[in-house]
């Protein structure tokens, strides 16, 4: 792969594996492949794994006596993985209503970027984004692939209450707020989908390595989907 992994102790019962600090889809696959191999081997002592762009953090259920032994085991496992991809990824279609009522910052954004609202919506919804990982808030997707034309610095003063479902752009990223929260991104729409449901296990239907594509909907459809979700009649579309 042309790079070396760094294995280190993070605390008494966790091990950090680091790849070079890049945002890269091939590397993401390497990270997630390693994660799924570890999960498949079902190390009973590993109770949780966090993956990000270029790291895996493995949390054990008790203190690790000998880190070097553990590093060796993991290194052997990493090297033994064959070239075939374990990773199965899905592409989810996510409805977004970009109408003014849901897009409090779209006017300002359109003016500042000198792009029509229609152009912004087109550019935002034509990309297939990669889910690199979930973090920040439960169910918050770190998406890669935002068109550089849409990059826009975060607000200087964050909003204290961004509504659940808000679809927003901040810097080089776009994302969906899975719950009401403070946030400094520019809100351009809202999705009626429940991205995080703690009553279900797993609580997210999307996972790292999956892909998402937004599609614009009218407010009437937004309300219909919302009702369908309430009565459990909504099925998420995949490509």
């Amino acid at each position: 792969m042309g790079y070396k992994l760094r294995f280190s102790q993070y605390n008494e019962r966790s091990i950090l594996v680091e790849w070079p600090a890049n945002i890269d889809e091939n590397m993401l696959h390497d990270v997630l492949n390693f994660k799924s191999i570890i999960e498949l081997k079902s190390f009973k002592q590993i109770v949780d794994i966090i993956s990000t762009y270029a790291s895996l953090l493995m949390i054990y259920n008790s203190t690790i006596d000998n880190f070097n032994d553990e590093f060796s085991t993991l290194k052997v496992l990493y090297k033994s993985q064959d070239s075939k991809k374990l990773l199965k990824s899905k592409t989810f279609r996510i409805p977004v209503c970009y109408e003014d009522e849901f897009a409090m910052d779209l006017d300002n954004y359109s003016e500042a970027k000198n792009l029509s609202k229609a152009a912004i919506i087109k550019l935002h919804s034509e990309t297939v984004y990669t889910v690199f990982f979930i973090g920040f808030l439960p169910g918050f997707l770190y998406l890669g692939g935002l068109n550089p034309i849409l990059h826009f610095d975060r607000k200087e003063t964050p909003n204290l209450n961004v509504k659940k479902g808000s679809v927003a752009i901040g810097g080089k990223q776009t994302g969906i707020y899975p719950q009401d929260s403070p946030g400094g991104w520019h809100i351009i729409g809202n999705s009626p989908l429940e991205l995080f449901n703690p009553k279900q296990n797993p609580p997210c239907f999307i996972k790292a390595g999956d892909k998402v594509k937004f599609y614009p909907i009218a407010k009437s459809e937004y309300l219909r989907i919302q009702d369908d979700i309430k009565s459990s009649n909504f099925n998420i579309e995949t490509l």
Partner: protein
Amino acid sequence: MMKVLKAGFYSTIQDQGRLGHRSYGVPVSGVMDAYSSEFANKLLGNKIEAAVLEMTMTGAELQCLKPTTIAISGAHMNPKLNGKVIEMFRSISVKPDDILSFGKLSNGFRTYVAVKGGFLSETVLGSRSMAKGITEAVRIQREDVLEFNLTGLLNPKHAKLKFNTSYLDDDVLAVTKGPEFDALTKAQQALLINQGFQVSKFNNRMAYQLLPLFNNNLKPILTAPVLPGTVQLTPSGQLIVLMRDCQTTGGYPRVLQLTEKSISCLSQKNTGNHLKISLKD
């Protein structure tokens, strides 16, 4: 059952936390001071996973509705049963209509009430720990009725256990190097370890901020995993010690990592308390 007459400043039901869901961004949560809460559970012969009541800064007032046994540990909030002073760190029988109350905080910051068999709050994703965005109840409130297990002891009692109360006044945090420790200059590393800090007023279950600001020029990192006990350093010099309700990933350099024991120790600290840092190899 116990009825909540007063909730106290910030009281929640907590257990050992939510494991196995961090890849969906779910915070682990769980008791802030694992040492104290485990002690209370052990006194009653409870399993370590039994949920306890965690009270911060001021205590709750609870009316018992069923007979049971309780144990109180952690910070000294001068507990009383029916207005009479009771001892901490031992098991105490309570009967219906008994009123458990707490007075002034005399040391530490968080007090734990364990009940025989454990409290039975809503279980979400394998844990009873109350957490914003995860459980419906985020903290206990007046008029709540706290359910608990009525089905006997699970393990023998440990009546002879002794609680190390000096632990509540301990001001030394044992740490190891964080993944970005080496990005600091040698002089900065030495200063970070030796200068000492104070707990700022921004301290809660998510994080403790420390004072004074720590001069540095570290750049943000590519968002990476963090854990409770991770010490992040912002470009403005703010040291942030992540605690049990912290997010799962972060973008600030992770300069130090608290040991499990030190997380418990820090969780007993209050605004203005002084802290020293001791680097383990």
